């Protein structure tokens, strides 16, 4: 078994990957149209593009998951033809998908070894632990490898994924939106890992919608727009965020949305002394109290895993808790989700594929997932599908969802476009209270701007919004107040106008706490 120690040294003259004239066609969709992409050995190459531009598809071809319709791929000068990810890894190409493919009930070590010819049985794993530890030290990828995967944080799971590809001897790594699920300091750690990897001769293709990250780590950038390359391997040198955004969406993007000052109305959501446990049975919320008023956006800031996911879940009836939660005076705590939905609560869930959508149902069906019960979509017994179809078409237009039609199944959508479908459903319900967890995760810059504008419009129309986000910038731009949560306790509620990022950062790490709010 080859481990990664035999990587060739960095050398920009060598082309690790040379994809030329790649065409990828799905029924009704030309996902990639004569795309060229070169990856130099030892570089970090950013792959940018709008939602549905064809980035993931192109990388799925390079990693052997899909097959191109036409075009050639060379790896270290040798023409290759992959029929499976196994073939690609044999040529040193490994991909870390945005949604991980680990087995939750097995340990990190077992996951790393899973599917390899050797070991046949999981006996004597300590022998392999040594090799894995060496890799960890080499690249700063620390994880407790004896833990079961479900006990690991998302950032740690990602490290396991990277270790897994490295252990298989990958010299070329593809990271598909790796930072979308990470907390800010985890992102910094990942960036350091990436730098360590290229310093030792690995080459990396990095997909991200966060342009400042691209600015920080990328050496060159390739931009796709609607399946066509609009910038081919341009050195990052003097490129700015603005230039990149322009290349991606073909227009200037306003990075700061405007928020009008507004006097909030009566209390809509009232949380009193709520406690709950997480999936592992450990306390996740400890006596949380918080009010959200009509026409107000309350942001929830915190490092991932400090209770914000659980907070959203107890409000929407997805998780049990103690204490009291009322929406417009009606108790919703420990009631099934049906009750909160009935009282006008919308929920953009954190996990868009496992919770927020049904993969084998159409866009139309995903849009009516909650509205099917009530007039006008739902009649007494039946669903008015023609009307649902028309509504879905309008929303597809309005939310700029890229898909051949509203009859397209959800699983065929790109990550960002699926997120748009979920947002369309939840915002168009005209809720009284909206619980939005990472609503702009996976969206491109243009779409983020559009969604943030829509959220503000909702607020101005009198909706109470609880916004959970790991993007401090987003929270600062949208929130009227920010509640900072640490270890299940609200450390303080601050006014974003008069509070600095560093102060919020201190609250987020539990180093100080602030009274009142």
């Amino acid at each position: 078994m080859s481990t990664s120690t035999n990587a060739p040294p960095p050398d920009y003259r060598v082309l690790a990957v040379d994809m030329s004239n790649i065409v990828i066609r799905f029924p009704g969709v030309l996902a990639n149209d004569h795309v060229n992409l070169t990856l130099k050995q030892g570089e970090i190459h950013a792959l940018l593009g709008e939602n549905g531009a064809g980035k993931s598809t192109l990388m799925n071809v390079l990693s052997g998951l899909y097959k191109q319709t036409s075009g050639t791929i060379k790896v270290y000068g040798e023409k290759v033809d992959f029929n499976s990810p196994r073939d690609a890894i044999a040529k040193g190409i490994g991909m870390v998908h945005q949604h991980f493919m680990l087995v939750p009930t097995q340990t990190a070590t077992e996951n790393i070894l899973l599917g390899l010819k050797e070991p046949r049985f999981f006996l004597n794993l300590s022998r392999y632990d040594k090799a894995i530890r060496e890799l960890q030290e080499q690249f700063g990828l620390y994880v407790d490898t004896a833990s079961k995967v479900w006990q690991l944080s998302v950032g740690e799971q990602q490290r396991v994924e990277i270790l897994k590809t490295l252990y298989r001897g990958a010299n070329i790594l593809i990271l598909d939106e790796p930072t979308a699920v990470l907390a800010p300091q985890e992102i910094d750690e990942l960036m350091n890992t990436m730098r360590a990897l290229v310093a030792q001769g690995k080459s990396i293709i990095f997909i991200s919608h966060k342009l400042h990250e691209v600015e920080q780590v990328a050496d060159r950038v390739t931009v796709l727009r609607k399946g066509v390359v609009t910038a081919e391997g341009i050195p990052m040198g003097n490129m700015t965020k603005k230039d990149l955004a322009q290349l991606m969406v073909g227009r200037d993007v306003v990075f700061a949305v405007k928020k009008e000052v507004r006097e909030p109305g009566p209390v809509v959501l009232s949380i009193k002394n709520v406690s709950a446990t997480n999936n592992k049975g450990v306390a996740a919320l400890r006596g949380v109290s918080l009010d959200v008023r009509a026409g107000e956006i309350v942001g929830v800031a915190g490092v991932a895993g400090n209770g914000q996911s659980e907070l959203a879940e107890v409000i929407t009836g997805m998780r049990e808790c103690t204490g009291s939660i009322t929406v417009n005076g009606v108790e919703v705590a420990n009631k099934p989700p049906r009750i909160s939905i009935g009282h006008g609560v919308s929920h953009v869930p954190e996990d868009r594929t496992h919770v927020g959508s049904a993969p084998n149902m159409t866009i139309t069906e995903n849009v009516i997932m909650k509205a099917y019960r009530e007039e006008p979509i739902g009649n007494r017994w039946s669903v008015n599908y023609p009307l649902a179809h028309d509504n879905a078409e309008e929303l597809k237009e309005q939310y700029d969802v890229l898909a051949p039609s509203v009859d397209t199944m959800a699983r065929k959508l790109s990550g960002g476009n699926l997120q748009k479908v979920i947002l369309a459903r939840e915002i168009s319900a005209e809720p009284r209270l909206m619980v939005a967890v990472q609503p702009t995760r996976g969206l491109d810059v243009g779409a983020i701007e559009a969604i943030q504008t829509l959220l503000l419009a909702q607020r101005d129309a009198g909706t109470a919004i609880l916004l959970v986000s790991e993007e401090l910038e987003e929270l600062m731009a949208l929130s009227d107040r920010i509640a900072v949560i640490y270890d299940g306790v609200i450390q303080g509620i601050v006014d974003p106008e008069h509070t600095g990022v560093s102060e919020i950062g201190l609250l987020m790490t539990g180093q100080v706490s602030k009274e009142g709010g």
Partner: protein
Amino acid sequence: MAFKLQVEKRSADPPRWLPAATSIGAVVIAFIISGIILTIIGGDPIRVFSFFYEAAFGSWAALSDTLVKATPLILVGLACTVAFRMKLWNIGAEGQFYIGAFFASLVVLLPIVPAGSSRWVTIGTMIVFGMIGGALWGFIPGFLKARYRVNEIITTLMLNYIAILWNNYWIFSKWSDAGFQMTPVFDKAAWLPRLADYAREFAFFSGMTLHFGFVIALIVTVIVWWILSRSKWGFEIKLIGDNPEAARYSGINIARNIVLVMMFSGALAGLAGMSEITGVVHRLQERISPGYGFTGIIIAWLAKLNPFAVVLVSILFGGLIVAGREIQPSGLAQLIQGIILFMVISSEFLLRYRVSFFGRNEAETPATPSTPEAETA
């Protein structure tokens, strides 16, 4: 030869026509294989199959017999379809069939409607009782799964044996007809009308055994289609089947639906049992089902869970059963059925994997994702 056989995992979306094509292909190939076996054992497959066709569909009388056999198959096929749509693996249609037959019999054996009631009162009550019986037999595994997460495959399978033994107990003891393993023949009021009953008016119908149960099965088919594809309940069933977590998030009560769908599935199988005793044997007896409940599973699968396709497949299987009675060796029909089942199961492989043959140098391949797990993000 420089040819290579290659098997790849295919994208999650095979072409639209492929599922139907594999079902039809499975049947065709099953006949071809049976033909080959016949040739090997010294038979003449063409003659055998044309005889088969004659026996099953060759005349109005034959067709009538075939449709009689198809009737219970349609109902149990629908029963499985409804449950499978929600990924609820009800393999207890056989038991639900027996309990449905038992409950329907109670109407005349206890009796529940006074002797001498009109035909439609009797039949109507039997329909209701048959469905209640089946629903009850579906309720038990549904409740156990919803409440205690007991695996429904095991409970439904076990309940089959209980149902059959329960039936046997009563026909061997209390309601035995002169010691035989059957109840006395029901009063005529409990017989579903047959075509032959109208032979006096229409001489053409004489001897035809096709009974009203077939019409009931067709009406139920349309109702099931409407429920699955047009109703709110059908939407919930589909959503739970596709992603239970998303269903929960949408405010759907999953536990309640598990119980309801199991009961509905059971009720349809129970109706099949009712139709069989009132339309064919006119008494409760041993072995009223030669495994219809299990054949229903194959039918639902072959019909790709489409209610109208269930009718077509059931007629084909009904024809096989009828023809199988007329031919020696008598196991031939079962052989073909077995091969069809085998083919259906292997055709599932074709839906999930792409098989291609190509020469050494050939590289041309269509843009087909090679696995469904590909996560676009």
